[in-house]
């Protein structure tokens, strides 16, 4: 099970979505699909058509910058970050 850490800007949008979620997934894309299954609409908040991660959403797998295609291992830590920006 991959260990997902989600940004605080995301969780208020979906009732019951915790900051930390464990999912069974082979890639980052699969992990987001699993979140979408449980919280419909969530994919659109992280991805844009393409599909690709939104410009200001960064994903790290075991501290390495990742894309949707990045594979996950059994105990991967996945950090989803809302980029530090704005004012």
């Amino acid at each position, binding site marked *: 099970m991959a260990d997902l850490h989600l*940004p605080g*800007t*995301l969780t*208020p*949008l979906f009732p019951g979505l915790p900051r930390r979620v464990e999912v069974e997934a082979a890639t980052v894309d699969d992990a987001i699909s699993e979140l979408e299954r449980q919280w419909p*609409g969530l994919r*659109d*908040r*992280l991805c*844009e*058509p*393409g599909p690709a991660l*939104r410009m*200001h*959403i960064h994903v790290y797998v075991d501290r390495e910058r990742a894309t949707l295609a990045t594979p996950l291992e059994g105990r991967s830590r996945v950090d989803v970050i*809302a*980029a530090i*920006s*704005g004012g």
Partner: protein
Amino acid sequence: MPKTLLVVGTRKGAFLLESDADRRSWSLRGPYCEGWPVYHAVHDAVTGTIYAAAASEWHGSAVWRSNDLGETWTLSSEGIAYDESSGRKVSKVSSLAARNGRVLVGVEAPGIFESKDGGETFSLLSTLAGEPGSEAWDDPANQPPGHLGISALMLDEDDDSRFWAIVQGVGVFETTDDGTSWTPRNRGLRADWPRPHEEVGFCVHRLVRADDTRMYQQNHVGMHRSDDLGHTWTEITEGLPTEFGFAAAAHPHDRDTFYVVPLDPGHGRTMPDGQATVWQTKDAGSSWRPLRKGLPQQDAHLGVLRAAMAIDNYDTPGLYFGTSTGQLFASNDEGESWNEIASYLPPISSVEVAVLD
């Protein structure tokens, strides 16, 4: 006793203000929509639902909705996307029109999406494809920063298949068949720049309707009036301090009375001489008078954006405008006197008013 509701969109979420029919004392609630930048927020008078068009830098565009006057909110962007093969992207949702659960959403790149289920799901209604000017607005390289795409949508009171859309920097288009076909409605407008098409190339900031035949608009270069529902336009700028502005409102019971907020036309785009002033015509634009009582008259360098002025429909209508520095002003006597009813909101992008029985 009726309740008066102001729906305010700001750069940091939506806010609601409530008052009674006297409209003297107001209570404020918010921010809503998790502080997302809200470009336009409206109230569906039939269903009572509030909708807010918002675009987060992080999480993309969506339409928020509340069925309980702001107590709870949810959001959806399901279906608000162009086909990937089109090469077009939705960068923001910028304008709304809602009636009886049908929601029209204007977006950038220019297009209109529709919801028939109260904002749960959306589908593409029209991109105005093939209309003159569309070859330029379909090219992202041609869009200036902050482009809104479809900057406004105006419904017909009686005919659901008829509405008007403003394409920012291009002009007004009317459909009478629910978006299947369009007609540019810009004849007689002034434009001080070269235009590749005779029918378009006009920078219409705000379009308002006075009655069955009369419309007014605040344009980038002048105020204009139409007496044939937008088929032809006549400029009515003379007598105003500047030709530039964004916001406008038409009196609901007197077709000859119209309000605008002239701004300096340069980069500043604030009220001339630091004096906050709403200008009123009561003779369809033949003459204008300033309305200043209660508005700051010194060092008030205020801007008002295109959707940030509204008028209610009481017998003696109230006027409202919000500034790009977060002040909200209200008049309960047709603009004769004003009060500042909120002072420290985020930059205000839209103000709409509803009278609730």
